């Protein structure tokens, strides 16, 4: 009960802050409690007091993560109707469906921080919140589905496994669910590439071409180098992040090199070689100018991704309206009320 007791004043603080200003001395106490919890590797939960900057950092990161999951459905969905077999088609549909699910877990997690779904989608649609730059590249051939599963989901897993221990409870729990599901994504991609690689020379070339195009953008998924990463140090201090961008990127490269070999495919980096002293693979320079251009909106598919997302949202309006009308009619009869989710209720002090 020590833990609960210690956080009790923090919960009280939230209530107080609704009514009016909190004396600065109290804030210092709550901040000390928060810092102690983070230092002790405890999780911060929705009702706990937290610094405003911690909350806004989480909102930015989790929203961006959620947006990436649903925008990420587009490049792969592009191939569902053209999958080469029923088996591959079923697998790809299952994967894209999982990505929709990941988006929903994450939107729910970020809503516990006091933002609404409408606001999040609006910010995505108007470019005020971002999604991973990787999804602004096109899927030109069937082999791209394999390269995405192997490399893009592989990089996502490398990023997400440490997030299962993120200091914010709802985000960490969402990540546990996501990571359990990601393993199949990566494996189906690897298996797809292996089948192509062992196929005809044309198929092998197609697999190699896909890997050549996806390798560098996958390395950019870990974000800018540590000395240029604006939010990294604070996020690590708050234990939102557990490892730096460069650490995770290196880990991913070290995993991929032997896997590429087992696929009988090469990685498009002439500088890639084992460094005995470091115990890691050395690799060539990353084109950060390209990364910044894509982030700015000048990637090959930025416009297409957002306009397709908006279109899907707008064209779905009649479904949401019909469902709401149906619910209103039936709620009138049963007296049931639409309540916010429990964690959201926490936020409003209703629970």
């Amino acid at each position: 009960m020590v833990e609960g007791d210690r956080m009790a004043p923090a919960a009280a603080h939230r209530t107080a802050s609704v009514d009016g200003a909190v004396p600065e001395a109290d804030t210092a106490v709550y901040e000390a409690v928060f810092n102690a919890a983070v230092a002790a590797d405890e999780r911060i939960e929705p009702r706990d007091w937290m610094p405003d900057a911690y909350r806004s950092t989480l909102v930015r990161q989790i929203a961006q993560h959620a947006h990436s999951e649903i925008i990420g459905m587009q490049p792969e969905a592009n191939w569902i109707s053209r999958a080469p077999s029923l088996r591959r088609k079923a697998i790809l549909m299952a994967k894209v469906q999982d990505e929709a699910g990941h988006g929903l877990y994450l939107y729910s997690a970020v809503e516990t921080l006091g933002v609404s779904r409408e606001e999040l989608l609006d910010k995505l649609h108007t470019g005020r919140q971002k999604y991973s730059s990787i999804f602004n590249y096109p899927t030109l051939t069937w082999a791209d589905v394999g390269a995405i599963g192997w490399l893009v989901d592989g990089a996502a897993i490398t990023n997400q496994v440490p997030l299962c221990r993120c200091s914010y409870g709802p985000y960490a729990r969402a990540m546990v669910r996501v990571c359990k599901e990601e393993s199949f994504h990566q494996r189906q991609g690897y298996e797809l590439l292996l089948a192509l690689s062992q196929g005809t020379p044309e198929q092998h070339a197609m697999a190699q071409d896909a890997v050549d195009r996806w390798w560098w953008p996958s390395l950019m998924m870990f974000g800018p180098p540590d000395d240029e990463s604006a939010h990294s140090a604070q996020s690590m201090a708050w234990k939102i992040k557990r490892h730096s961008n460069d650490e995770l990127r290196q880990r991913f490269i070290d995993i991929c090199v032997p896997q590429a070999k087992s696929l009988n495919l090469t990685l498009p980096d002439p500088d890639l070689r084992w460094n005995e002293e470091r115990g890691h693979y050395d690799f060539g320079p990353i084109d950060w100018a390209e990364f910044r251009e894509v982030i700015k909106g000048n990637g090959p598919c930025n416009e297409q991704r957002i306009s397709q997302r908006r279109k899907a949202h707008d064209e779905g309006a009649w479904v949401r309206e019909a469902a709401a009308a149906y619910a209103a009619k039936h709620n009138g009869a049963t007296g049931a009320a639409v309540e916010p989710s429990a964690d959201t209720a926490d936020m409003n002090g209703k629970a």
Partner: protein
Amino acid sequence: MTTEQSPLWEVFVRSRRGLSHTHAGSLHAPDAELALRNARDLYTRRGEGVSIWVVPSKAITASSPDEKDAFFEPAADKPYRHPTFYEIPEGVKHL
């Protein structure tokens, strides 16, 4: 004066921060505030929790046991949703 049974509440307890609230059981109480206090006395007498949710039982919509097969069947014939469905050559690590 009525002696009607007070409403039923479902109790969810978070055993420690970092874990989800999980269903602990149910109890009767006339309102949410009392349900919360009763839940504390009933389900966390030995420090089993650091947070409790109480939810009116009638607010819960449950799937029907009769429809169990039809309801969950669609997941049963999709083994490709599991990583073990895919054959990976021996010795390949971190997949």
